[in-house]
């Protein structure tokens, strides 16, 4: 059903319906955002917006070449991944410290809760930066984009079992990283 809807939205977008294009990419926005965040990592957080804009621009300009042989989500995922990897390869020498990354708290959090939550999220964000890119991508797609293992496997072109392993090992790694003495001190400072 979702695929049929995508095909219909692609056809309408190709006829110049801007609203249809917005609805089309809107359906897969979380997926594109998750993969861009995963590839850029927290060190290149400032580039996320630029890469997202480029992703949608390229998708918009190249929609005429989308043949429907793969799902639209896979096609968009590939564009987002390519654009993010392009930034990573161009900015390999960028040494923005992970400690300089500021993560905003959710708008609905109380001041105390906001401080605590921001601290916890920063800890996770920094720990995520140490994960292998494949683990990070699988985890971001699973949690940020709320994808099923089967959907992630299709996007990443991997067997479902491998994706499950990536997510599982990623979490074990996160626990290991967060259990290091230096990370524990950070937690104490936050709470």
């Amino acid at each position, binding site marked *: 059903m979702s695929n049929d809807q995508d095909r219909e939205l692609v056809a309408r977008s190709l*006829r110049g319906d801007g609203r249809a*294009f917005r609805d089309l990419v809107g359906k897969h926005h979380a997926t594109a955002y998750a993969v861009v965040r995963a590839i850029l990592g927290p060190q290149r957080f400032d580039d996320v917006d630029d890469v997202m804009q480029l992703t949608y621009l390229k998708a*918009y300009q190249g929609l005429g070449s989308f043949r429907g042989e793969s799902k639209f989500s896979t096609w968009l995922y590939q564009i987002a991944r390519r654009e993010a990897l392009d930034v990573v390869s161009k900015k390999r020498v960028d040494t923005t410290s992970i400690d300089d990354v500021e993560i905003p708290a959710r708008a609905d959090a109380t001041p105390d809760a906001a401080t605590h939550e921001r601290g916890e999220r920063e800890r996770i964000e920094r720990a995520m930066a140490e994960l292998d890119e494949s683990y990070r991508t699988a985890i971001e797609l699973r949690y*940020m984009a709320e994808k099923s293992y089967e959907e992630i496997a299709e996007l990443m072109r991997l067997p479902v079992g491998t994706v499950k392993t990536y997510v*599982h090992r990623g979490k074990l790694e996160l626990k290991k990283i967060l259990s290091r003495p230096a990370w524990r001190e950070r937690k104490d400072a936050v709470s």
Partner: protein
Amino acid sequence: MNRFDPMDCERIEAKLPLFVARELSADEAASVSTHLDACPQCRDALASFVSIEQALVARRDEVPAIDAFLPDMSAAGFRARRGILIRSFRALMSVPGVAIVLVMWGALLFGRYSDRLTGEATQKTMLERLTAVAKHGLDAMVAAAGGDAWTLTAVYGALAIGVIVSAGALTVRFVRS
């Protein structure tokens, strides 16, 4: 003092992310629960995994609204796929398209005026006319080539390759337009 075998705890800890995400079977979850009830060390590990799970689940709220990322569609140079008539016309107006049309037109003219060329009586069908023209043309070319069959083969080969390449280029142009 922990009364469990460290190997047991290691095995249980490896299952905790799945336990927290409710991805274990009922039997496995029950076995992990039993262990957790009696093992404070694994309960500490469980607390860490719960905290990680909560932080990961909270990440879904970090996806910003899409509107800030969308291009200005009027300025983005949208390349919509054109209708089949326009695509066909554009393909025909290309160099390979014009070449193929000229070749076909020439073949028809040859067929129409084949009597004059061959000096033979009028044939009944277009195929017979074209066959006669081809035969006449072949004879003429053999004569022009001084009876050299290799030169003749090269000329016909080049013509055939030209037609095939033109047809391929025309197809590509049509598909891409």
